[in-house]
């Protein structure tokens, strides 16, 4: 029984509707190959970012059922590790947007292929493509919006971006496996030889050309380059920081903050003379700010890197976390949970592991660039650990719990 006419109705379902002389399997293969490198970097660095949050420690896990892909012990060395991986994740994710658009444009006639479904295997393949395109756009849209603090949805970003990423990776792996033969054929064949009958993407009735293929690559490259120049500076720093015109952070005189004391509901009374740092371990004791300042102080240039892509290096001074572990009677602590004065919010606490506690550069910082911390930067004391995501470098520390 035939439900649909054999001939496509007028409109985009007819091959002659699509007239760009640029479309071909070769072009799509080329765009797809470069895009694959880009999304590969974004996917791996995305999973690494999940690992850097160390969801297996303490109450770090933000996702109820974490299936633990690539959860590894996150190292402290090199100190720029998270700035590098997360800078790549955000920057590459932004600059490959034009490439993604070009790739989707190059295959759009396939969306309207007639008949829409040729059989059960074809139906499964089309569902697979829908999952791939849907999850790709979902990942790009949610990630880029998150970097701009724009949340027009009603779900948890971290969880949705994590699971969305896994769906994206699964559907991409299958897509690449299915398409490799077609790509090989396209690269092996001189494109002039292939007519519309051999090349499902080539227009049977092409319009006169207005842009060469090289011109199209030039356009994609120019758009990607403009995005790179106006964004990358927030991660790379130096003179590029001044031209990062659209980077949501990282421009301006002082280094960025993600959450002010006002938003975190930190009041001056909380950090006044009554402030005590509570150390919990084998012993439990309280230290005044003066007692903390009387402990051996160490100064290091440490990078602070945000999940949203920006990073900056500043000079931090404070007490080594391992000295504080010893002061709590736990010199060989396996974990340290830092609690903030901040009364609410997912990141008012964070737990780090033994390598991070023991690293000589891991500090409970009291000063930055020679001056006491400002209230917005976490006065009286904040955690700073090499290669740890910025949001886990707890500010306004009230309590350190060693176990």
């Amino acid at each position: 029984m035939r439900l649909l006419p054999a001939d496509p109705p007028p409109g985009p379902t007819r091959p002659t509707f699509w007239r760009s002389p640029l479309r071909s399997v070769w072009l799509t293969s080329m765009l797809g190959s470069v895009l694959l490198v880009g999304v590969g970097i974004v996917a791996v660095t995305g999973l690494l970012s999940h690992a850097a949050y160390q969801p297996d420690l303490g109450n770090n896990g933000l996702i109820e059922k974490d299936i633990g892909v690539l959860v590894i012990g996150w190292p402290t060395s090199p100190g720029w590790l998270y700035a590098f991986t997360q800078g790549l994740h955000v920057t590459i994710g932004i600059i490959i947007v034009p490439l993604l658009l070009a790739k989707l444009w190059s295959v759009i006639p396939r969306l309207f292929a007639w008949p829409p479904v040729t059989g059960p295997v074809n139906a499964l393949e089309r569902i697979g493509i829908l999952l791939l395109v849907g999850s790709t756009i979902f990942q790009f849209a949610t990630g880029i919006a998150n970097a701009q603090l724009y949340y027009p949805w009603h779900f948890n970003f971290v969880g949705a971006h994590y699971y969305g990423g896994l769906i994206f990776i699964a559907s991409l792996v299958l897509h690449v496996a299915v398409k490799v033969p077609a790509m090989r054929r396209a690269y092996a064949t001189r494109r002039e030889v292939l007519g519309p009958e051999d090349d499902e993407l080539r227009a049977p009735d092409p319009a006169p050309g207005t842009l060469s293929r090289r011109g199209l690559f030039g356009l994609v490259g120019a758009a990607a380059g403009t995005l790179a120049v106006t964004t990358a500076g927030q991660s790379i720093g130096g003179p590029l920081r001044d031209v990062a015109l659209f980077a949501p952070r990282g421009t301006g005189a002082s280094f960025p903050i993600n959450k002010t004391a006002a938003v975190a509901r930190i009041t001056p009374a909380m950090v006044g003379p009554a402030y005590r740092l509570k150390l919990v371990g084998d012993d439990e004791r309280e230290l005044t700010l003066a007692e903390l300042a009387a402990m051996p102080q160490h100064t290091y240039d440490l990078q602070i890197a945000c999940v949203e892509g920006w990073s900056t290096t500043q000079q931090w001074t404070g007490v080594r976390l391992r000295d504080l572990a010893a002061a709590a009677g736990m010199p060989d602590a396996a974990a340290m949970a830092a609690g903030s004065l901040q009364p609410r919010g997912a990141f008012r606490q964070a737990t780090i592991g033994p390598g991070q506690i023991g690293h000589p550069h891991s500090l409970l910082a009291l000063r930055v660039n020679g001056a006491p911390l400002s209230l917005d930067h976490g006065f009286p004391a904040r955690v700073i650990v090499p290669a740890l995501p910025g949001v886990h470098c707890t500010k306004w520390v009230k309590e350190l719990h060693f176990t």
Partner: protein
Amino acid sequence: MKRAAGHILLIAATAWLLAQMFHVNVAPQPLNLVLWLALGALVHDLLLLPLYSGADALIRRLPAPVINHVRFPVAISAVLLLVWFPLILQRRPSGYVNALGREPPDYLGRWLAVTAGLFVLSGVVYAVRRLTASRAGAPRPSGR
């Protein structure tokens, strides 16, 4: 058959991942998440793509030598807007200034300035091409 098995496996894995995703902690309103997952592809394929194809068709009506000198700045500026529209159109949460502790820069002005710069650059390239072509006395190559 191998392909079919691969796809069935993918669909099963996705269904399982979606089930994880619909946990109350991630998606208190599952329908909203489903819409976001499904609508992105539809918005792109049925709205965005026809929109920019239509805009390009308008640009193609210009005299041949000018086409790409308009197409390039328009396309690059449009991509910038697509990526940064929450900043450019000030779609930010009410607590934004409070959270960052400073007034954000004028992103709309920056975008307009970059767009103007792209047009100027493209115009300069066009002028240089015309000049060199007329000096050489050869007819200008009009884009293929």
